């Protein structure tokens, strides 16, 4: 009895205490004593409580969307698209919107670190005064033995390093990102070169197209420039009063783009080339023309059968494609990231030639931009050189090759053979952990620079990057570090610092006919920062394209499988991009659009197949390919071929901070080191097997709150 009463009394006291603290905190005075640190010298354009906006460029992927960052009292609050920017016109995707979670991430590298190669116990903070002589000493190495591995952003650093390596005769810097590899950029460019005779990235005018065939191009989520293609997609659907655009997607695993398509044609991975040729022949027949040389020998019915679809369907689609005035065929990463990827890309581009849409609204144009990645084949050469101890110094910026490259390539082992590895990473990622020095660059929102290679820009654009907040930590711009060190090493470049370099690079733009100009660089510079870059007002695409001579192609078709034992493996990038997005908690928490899954890696398998194999939702399976294996939970995904499984890329980090580490699995372990003719990763014709492990690990899905699929 007395026990009970004591407890009741205790509850009373606790309740009263809670009430008091509510009174105290709720009514204000407690928040008085949150220490306020006013500016000692407030910038005159700044006012407490009012917004200050800065125009800059998103560096979360290579697309280069213009952003406007709203800041308050020196803090970056929200990021929105720059309405004037010709690429994204005020729109932005989830990755750009969460960029502050990178800036304010508690797991950043706080200052220069010296570490005894991966031995985190022995890592020690160093100072810039000690670090820069190390860099400058490294830059004095024999020119042939210096290697730079850069990411797809920012472009100004690439330009600077290129200029420096050229000045001393060192190999040009390589640029790599897993995302670019999944997108098949090099293949696309080379295919355009072979088809149209110009090595430029094609621009697909989706907005004005009426019938669009997408071959594995997930342009609504990750491919090339998802924001501008999403805008174009919206216009294709609803901007014309007369006709609603019709989208057909050919791919084995329904991506977001295929999910939004009017028709999803689940062809086998590896059959894209056959399907494209069959379509070419059927389209020619429908238009009453002679079939192109490459397609003359193809049997459409046999091709359809090889692809696992109905021949009649193919005929219907070919008629549709042939009948429309604005037809467009897009070769995407899924289709061209294969052994025969280059020929496949050519075959798909050839469909555009057939319907004469080159350089016309709703058709294919060529951009004036370079593409920002070197092919994977060149990265392989670098690994080879590293293995042969021909690389003395390796500088890494903006890329995380230990995580991103196929494991079978052995980058990690090769890295161990390089005497000096210097990483400029902002985050302690897998590669930075295996470097001798981590000399952190500013985060993108603290940096100057520009992006100029915008894959989906329809005109010349230089998109400016400027700091929106003062650097939070003891970081230093990599361009500044390299300029200082190069000067000390006796191979200086004619620039005092990063800003000077950027200014000198944009001097030619003053008279290049953009939408503003200025009498001299300082005025031009302030407008450049104010507008978020420089561009011309008119669309300026290369319309002068014609088909070069075509070459006959033959495709081996999809691999044959042992039924229910072997599966085609589709590895696809998600909102986490090349994996660098995994430490943004809101990108992790954002449901994957198609599966509504969060915070993990999953294996997608058709429910029909899963039933046959006795696999249930959330069962952990072991996926094995000739190159490696991983374990992950199953998600029964209704929109995938029964003979295909799919795994998202981006998770499975062993470093990169609290939100990324130890979460999911990295499918880089499953990928081959093979490249196609253009040097892009041939990742989409891998055959895998799966086995139950007997374990179960539930996946955090958002759909269950709605019970979309009924019982489970």
């Amino acid at each position, binding site marked *: 009895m007395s026990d009970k009463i004591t407890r009741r009394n205790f509850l009373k006291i606790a309740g009263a205490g809670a009430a*008091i603290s509510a009174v105290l905190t*709720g009514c204000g005075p407690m928040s008085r004593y949150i220490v306020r640190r006013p500016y000692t010298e407030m910038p005159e354009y700044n006012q407490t409580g009012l917004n200050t906006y800065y125009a800059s460029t998103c560096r979360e992927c290579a697309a280069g969307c213009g952003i406007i960052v709203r800041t308050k009292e020196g803090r970056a609050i929200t990021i929105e698209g720059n309405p004037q920017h010709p690429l994204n016109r005020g729109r932005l995707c989830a990755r750009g919107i969460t960029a502050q979670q990178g800036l304010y991430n508690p797991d950043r590298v706080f200052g220069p670190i010296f570490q005894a190669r991966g031995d985190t116990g022995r890592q020690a903070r160093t100072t810039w005064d000690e670090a820069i002589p190390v860099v400058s000493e490294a830059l004095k190495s024999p020119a042939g033995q210096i290697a730079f591995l850069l990411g797809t952003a920012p472009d100004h650093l690439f330009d600077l390093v290129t200029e420096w390596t050229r000045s001393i005769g060192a190999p040009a810097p390589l640029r790599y990102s897993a995302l670019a590899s999944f997108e098949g950029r090099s293949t696309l460019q080379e295919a355009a070169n072979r088809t149209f005779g110009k090595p430029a990235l094609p621009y697909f005018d989706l907005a004005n197209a009426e019938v669009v065939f997408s071959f594995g191009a997930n342009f609504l989520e990750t491919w090339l420039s998802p924001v501008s293609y999403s805008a174009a997609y919206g216009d294709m659907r609803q901007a014309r009063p007369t006709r609603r655009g019709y989208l057909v997607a050919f791919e084995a695993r329904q991506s977001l783009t295929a999910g939004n398509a009017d028709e999803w044609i689940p062809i086998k991975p590896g059959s894209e080339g056959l399907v494209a040729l069959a379509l070419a022949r059927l389209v020619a027949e429908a238009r009453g023309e002679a079939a192109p040389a490459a397609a003359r020998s193809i049997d459409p019915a046999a091709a359809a059968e090889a692809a696992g679809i109905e021949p009649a369907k193919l005929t219907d689609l070919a008629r549709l494609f042939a009948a429309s005035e604005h037809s467009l065929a897009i070769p995407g990463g899924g289709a061209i990231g294969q052994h025969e990827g280059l020929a496949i890309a050519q075959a798909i581009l050839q469909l555009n030639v057939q319907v004469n849409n080159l350089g016309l609204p709703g058709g294919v144009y060529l951009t004036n931009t370079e593409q920002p990645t070197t092919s994977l084949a060149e990265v392989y050469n670098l690994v080879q050189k590293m293995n042969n101890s021909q690389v003395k110094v390796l500088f890494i910026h903006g890329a995380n090759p230990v995580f991103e490259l196929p494991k079978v390539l052995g980058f990690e082992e090769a890295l161990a053979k390089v005497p000096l590895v210097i990483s400029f990473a902002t985050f302690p990622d897998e590669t930075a952990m295996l470097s001798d020095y981590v000399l952190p660059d500013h985060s993108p929102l603290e940096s100057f620079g520009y992006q100029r290679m915008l894959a989906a820009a329809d005109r010349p654009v230089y998109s400016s990057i400027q700091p929106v907040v003062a650097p939070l930590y003891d970081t230093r711009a990599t361009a500044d570090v390299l300029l200082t060190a190069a000067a000390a090493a006796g191979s200086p470049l004619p620039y005092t610092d990063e800003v000077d370099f950027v200014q000198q690079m944009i001097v030619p733009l003053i008279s290049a006919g953009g939408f503003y100009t200025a009498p001299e660089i300082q005025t031009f510079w302030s407008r450049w920062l104010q507008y978020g870059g420089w561009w011309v007002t008119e669309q300026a695409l290369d319309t002068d394209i014609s088909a070069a001579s075509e070459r006959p192609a033959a495709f081996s078709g999809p691999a044959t499988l042992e039924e229910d034992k072997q599966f085609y493996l589709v590895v696809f990038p998600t909102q986490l991009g090349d994996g660098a997005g995994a430490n943004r908690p809101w990108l992790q928490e954002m449901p994957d659009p198609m599966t509504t899954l969060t915070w993990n890696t999953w294996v997608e398998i058709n429910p029909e197949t899963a039933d046959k194999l006795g696999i249930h939702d959330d069962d952990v399976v072991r996926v094995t390919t000739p190159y490696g294996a991983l374990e992950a939970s199953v998600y029964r995904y209704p929109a995938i071929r029964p003979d295909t499984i799919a795994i998202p890329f981006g998770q499975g980090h062993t470093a990169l901070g609290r939100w990324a580490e130890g979460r999911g699995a990295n499918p880089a372990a499953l990928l081959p080191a093979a490249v196609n003719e253009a040097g892009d990763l041939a990742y989409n014709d891998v055959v895998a097997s799966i086995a139950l492990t007997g374990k179960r690990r539930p996946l955090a899905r958002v759909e269950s709150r709605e019970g979309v699929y009924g019982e489970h």
Partner: protein
Amino acid sequence: MKLKKPWWNQPGMQIATVLVTLIIVGGIVGGIFLTQTSPEQPIAFPHNRHVGIGASCLYCHTGATLGPSAGLPGIEKCWGCHQQVQKQSPELTKLAGYVERNEAIPWVPVAIQPDFVHFKHSLHVNAGLQCSACHGDLTKMTVAEPQKGQNMGWCLQCHKNSAPEQWTKLSDCATCHY
């Protein structure tokens, strides 16, 4: 045989009850007291003297006409005058110390709203409201003192009296709470 006292008559229980009541009452009184006193400031700024010599409120609290926050002056503002108008006083020595160290003065805001109230100075000042309507007569204060009874009813009373024709808008929850 001694009859066992009921539990509420046990001496220990009574003492405990008294103690608990005291703690609760003390907590409440203390809490209310805290909301009604001036917090300790890094520099005991004499408002009365500054207002007395004719300094406008907006000279230091520049944000009042522009945005939500009236703002607190930084060392540049103080030193702008006091570099010339220098009189020896312990408070000014403190100011000189902040200036020397180039350090912000950690003023403690007095008239502060809870986080779920979004008060905007500019709207009120630009509508012609005097500062003293809410902050009291600063000519009679050294450091700023919190004003009594500034609760939501007080806000609404003023909204009702000063602009009855806009009552729908001025009584809308979303005007201040979001």
